[in-house]
C-alpha cells in the first residue's frame, strides 16, 4: 500500500533569492538519473594486477557498525590487534571507503541506510558479512524485522563465521579478502550493476516506504 509522502518530500514551490519561482522535487536525483554500469579495469592486465595489489594493501573500512559485531571492530583498531599493520583503516565517509563490513544482523531500517552507503562508495568496492545472521538469518531467523540472507540485497564477497567473529577471525577474513582482490575475483560492484533490477526488486520487497532515488550516487 502506498504510504503518503512525508511533508518535506512532496514537490514544493521555492522562491529563489533572485525572485525566480521554481519547483523542487526532492525525490528526483538531480545529480544523475543513470543506473550503475559495469566498470572494466585497466586495459593492460599488468596495470590491473598492480592496482589490485594496491587495493588489497589499503582496505579502507566504512565506519558504519550495522550490527552487534561492530564491537569486535574496535579492538581491531587499537593496540592489541592493530589492523593498521595490515593497511586497514577506518574512514568515516562512504565516499572514501572501499570495504563495507555488515557486522551481524541487519534490520530493515539499517538495511535502507546500508544500501545508500553502499551505493555511494566508489567502484571497486567489497562487502564482508560477519556472523551467522548474514548467512541464513542467525538467531533472528523468525524475526519480522531482520533480513535473513544478505546476498539477496547486496553482492557479498566474503563471509566470516562466528556469533560475533573474534578479531583474529576478522583479520584472517581480511587476509582472505586480500587474496580474492589480488586474484581479481572481488568484482561485487560489477555484479551489482549487472543484476541491478533483481537486487532492486528484492530491496523494494522488504523496504516498504521507498522514499529515495533508485541509485543514490
Amino acid at each position, binding site marked *: *500500500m502506498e504510504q503518503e509522502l512525508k511533508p518535506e518530500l512532496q514537490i514544493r514551490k521555492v522562491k529563489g533569492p533572485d525572485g525566480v519561482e521554481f519547483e523542487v522535487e526532492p525525490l528526483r536525483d538531480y545529480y544523475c538519473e543513470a543506473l550503475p554500469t559495469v566498470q572494466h579495469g585497466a586495459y593492460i592486465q599488468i596495470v590491473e594486477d598492480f592496482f589490485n595489489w594496491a587495493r588489497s594493501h589499503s582496505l579502507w573500512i566504512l565506519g558504519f557498525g550495522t550490527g552487534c559485531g561492530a564491537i569486535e571492530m574496535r579492538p581491531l583498531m587499537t593496540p592489541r590487534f592493530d589492523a593498521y599493520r595490515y593497511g586497514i583503516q577506518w574512514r568515516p565517509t562512504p565516499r572514501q571507503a572501499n570495504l563495507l563490513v555488515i557486522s551481524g544482523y541487519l534490520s530493515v*531500517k539499517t538495511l535502507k541506510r546500508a544500501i545508500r552507503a553502499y551505493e555511494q562508495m566508489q567502484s571497486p568496492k567489497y562487502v564482508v558479512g560477519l556472523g551467522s545472521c548474514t548467512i541464513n*538469518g542467525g538467531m533472528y531467523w523468525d*524475526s*519480522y524485522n531482520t533480513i535473513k*540472507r544478505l546476498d*539477496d540485497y547486496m553482492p557479498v564477497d566474503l563471509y566470516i563465521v562466528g556469533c560475533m567473529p573474534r578479531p583474529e577471525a576478522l583479520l584472517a577474513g581480511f587476509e582472505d579478502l586480500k587474496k580474492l582482490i589480488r586474484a581479481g575475483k572481488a568484482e561485487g560492484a560489477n555484479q551489482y550493476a549487472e543484476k541491478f533490477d533483481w537486487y532492486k526488486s528484492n530491496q523494494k*520487497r*522488504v523496504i*516498504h516506504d521507498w522514499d529515495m532515488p533508485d541509485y543514490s550516487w
Partner: protein
Amino acid sequence: MRALHIRLQHLFPLGELTEQRPDLGFVTVPAAYLRPTLLHLRDREGYTHLVLLTAVDWLEEDLFQLTYLLSNRSTGCDIGLRVKFPRQAAHMESIHDLWPTAATYQRELREMFGIDFPGSPRLHEEFILEGWNDIPPYRRDFDTLKYARANYNDRPGRETHDPEQHMKQQLYPDGA
C-alpha cells in the same frame, strides 16, 4: 506492602494485592481510578520514580493489561498497578503530564500494541518500525514466523527427519 494496600483501599476501589516479594506487589486498578491513584502515590506516598509502563496481551481473555510500575526511592519498595481493558479500539488516558518520560513509553505502546493514548505528544510519529504495513507486531495474534517466511527467503537445502518415523521406515519397511 500490606499497610499501603489497606490505606489505598480506603480511598480507591482496588482489586486484590498479589505480593511477589516483600518489596514488590501488584494490584488491579479500575481504569477510571488510574489517574487519581497515580497522583496519590506520587505526591503523598513518595512513589516518585515511574520505572516501567508496558502492556501484556491476554488474547484468550480478549483483554489488554497495562502495568504501571512505580518505585519509592527512600523505602526501596515497588508497586505495580494493573489496568485491564478490552482489546478492540484499545485506548487509555495519557499520563505524559505526570511524568514527561511516559510520552516515550506511550509512543512505543501505540506502535507495538496499537493502544491509543489521546493527547500524548508526538504519538503517531514512527518510533521504531519504518513503513510498517501489518497489524502492530507485539500483539499475540501476529505470527512473526509466518511474516518472516512471507517476506524474506531462507537458504534452501534444509530438511530434517524425525528419528522415530525414520527408524520405523528403516527397521520395518513394510510396516509389519
